[in-house]
């Protein structure tokens, strides 16, 4: 693992210093990095951009309410195994009757249990040296899922079902593991104890300018200032679901499709709120508080 340097972001991604430090530390001591923070602050982007920037293989496991460690590590395909074993019996019967043609098992052999193991992202990442493994939104998982992960994460070793094959990774080849969470449920303490924890705090205005700059380097300064000012104004309104970086970037993308003057009037009129505000109550609040101030808009 190339851990001697600290990764501080790429052309498209600004990794703030604290996050960079936590990420570096996690990589150096080979622990997973657990990132929490508001939705839309670039938690998931970190490993994606890191893998792309460093040219590493990336494996993603999006967690859902039905996630299980089986999907994550490896699953034994019982149905295929049943089918192939039946095919073998059939083939033997055909041979007895002197038939030449055989049914195919697609190269799989029933004695060879490994052929029926469907490898999940964890196994793939563990068998690819220096890869990146993202476990996205772990808080959506059933309660026992994080605990089931503990063994795999702390022993650098995975045991394949049925075949008993062991996938082991050397410490220096350990994949970079990033886990994200939106704090929808509290994760078990034992699990958190095995991760390096980082909470992404919302970027201050100056950083936001840099982020926007990274995504839209040609954007007009005046427009950028106005957008960001308005955006932070909205965040200070105490909305139920305050817009985050992701929403701001989509809004700017929308504005950028217009000419400068037109875009400016759109900002002044607070248009295109659909990408920023996702809640009827919030929208009303924004309309009364921000648009009321605006003389252009009656």
């Amino acid at each position: 693992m190339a851990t001697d340097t600290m990764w501080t972001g790429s052309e498209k991604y600004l990794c703030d210093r604290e996050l960079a430090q936590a990420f570096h530390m996690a990589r150096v001591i080979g622990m997973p990095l657990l990132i929490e923070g508001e939705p839309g602050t670039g938690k998931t982007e970190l490993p994606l951009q890191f893998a792309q920037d460093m040219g590493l293989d990336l494996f993603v496991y999006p967690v859902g309410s039905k996630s299980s460690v089986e999907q994550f590590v490896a699953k034994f395909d019982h149905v295929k195994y049943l089918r192939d074993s039946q095919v073998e019996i059939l083939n033997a019967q055909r041979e007895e009757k002197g038939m030449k043609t055989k049914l195919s098992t697609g190269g799989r052999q029933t004695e060879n249990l490994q052929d029926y193991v469907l490898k999940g992202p964890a196994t793939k990442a563990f068998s690819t040296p220096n890869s990146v493994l993202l476990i996205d939104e772990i808080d959506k998982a059933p309660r026992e899922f994080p605990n089931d992960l503990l063994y795999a994460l702390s022993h650098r070793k995975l045991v394949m079902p049925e075949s008993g094959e062991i996938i082991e990774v050397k410490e220096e080849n350990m994949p970079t593991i990033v886990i994200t969470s939106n704090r929808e449920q509290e994760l078990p303490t034992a699990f958190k104890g095995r991760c390096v924890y980082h909470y992404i705090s919302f970027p201050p205005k100056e950083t936001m300018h840099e982020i926007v700059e990274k995504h839209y380097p040609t954007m007009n300064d005046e427009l950028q200032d106005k957008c960001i000012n308005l955006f932070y104004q909205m965040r200070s309104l105490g909305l139920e679901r305050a817009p985050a970086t992701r929403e701001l970037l989509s809004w700017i993308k929308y504005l950028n499709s217009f000419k400068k003057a037109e875009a400016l009037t759109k900002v002044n009129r607070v248009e295109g709120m659909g990408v920023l505000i996702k809640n009827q109550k919030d929208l009303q609040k924004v309309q009364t508080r921000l648009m009321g101030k605006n003389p252009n808009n009656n």
Partner: protein
Amino acid sequence: MFDQLPETFRSFKLNADVRTLLQLRQAMDKGLVKTVGDLFYVLKGLVTTSPTDIGPFSKAFYAHFLSINIVPGEPLEEAVIRSDTFQEWKDKLEEDEKIDIPDIDLVNQFLDEVHTTSYDIKNFLSGQDILDKRDPDLEDTDAPIDGEASDKTNILDRMADYRDVPLEELLKRMREVAKHQKTRHEGGDYWIGQGGVSPYGNGGAAAGGIRVGGAGGGKMARAAINNKDFYPVDAKAPLRDDNIDAALAALKGIEEASTDIILDVPVTIKEGLKQGGIFLPIEKEKRQQRIQVILMIDNGGWSMSPYIRIVQKLFAKMKTRFAHDLKTYYFHNTIYGGLYSDAARTKFEDLDKINIQDKNYSVFVIGDADMAPYELHRNSIRDWQKLNKHFKRMAWLNPMHENEWYGSMTCSIISQIFPMFELTPAGIEAAILEMNRKRNFQ
């Protein structure tokens, strides 16, 4: 110095144990800790587990490593100025030249140096380009702080670099410093520093006109201390609007295992193969999450009125977030043969009708259980017992403080029938743990 670390951190209600020390040691072995700033980051990553840990963590760190003890309500700056560490640091700074800057401004410099990480130093070392395009308005501030500030090499000499110091040596030094701090007055070297070499850079980095780190850890740590966003919600406080989310998180612990029967494919196949190709279906119970909740709320007396709205809000939130099935009943003080299905208590439902519902409901009774002794007569007690017999998972949540329960006769009777918990986020969590335990052993 490190031996007591888990103890100190635990006294700040943080999770720290031997594992933390081992992980820290590992991080040190890998060369991640070269300055106090590094130590702050590494420990923060290892110890904190939620944003609300960051405040207590910063306090614990300052107390443990820098002997800066923050009295509740006191701003960080004042605590820093009070501390010996700061005074020693200032003395050291003044050795060469008297500094005419108010303490409060020096605190910023002190904190910046405390939080200077090896990454900052590395940037500084390789950052010739930063030096070249120095910010002009920062340059103005150079001169008064330190006369030799422009002498960059000098600063770097004084910037401690522990890269080549073996871990054992580092630990030994720390222990010595700890001893010094106990006997005080030894002066000069504080914490990790020794002689003229201090990881803080001793008026180095910041005085050099370059804010290595910029808006770095110092700022964050300052923000974290005394800011309620970075403090844990008091789980023992009565349920209120501002801790309702903590209670909601606790409610999420209610899990239900249903008993749907599905085909067990792996076992069927294995057995079939053993039988030489005759496959007999083998079934198993399917487990899935289902949350069914019944609420029984005492909305009678004035004593309960402050809590009704918040309880309803809590469970309404639960319903929109993750529950599928929520029923609410009302009663006044206690029950006689049944409950009411509306808040005005006009629609009476017979107990027998309630008792034929799915026994897998989690039932929360919310009430103070405090009434005139004659109200809770034998029949009423029997009704409660009937309910408790049918619903395996039932708990009583009481808005009164636990100390007051035993002062009320009716309350102590009811607490013998049901497990009783305080109506606080912590109490709700305990109630759910108790319920889940029951499920597992029934």
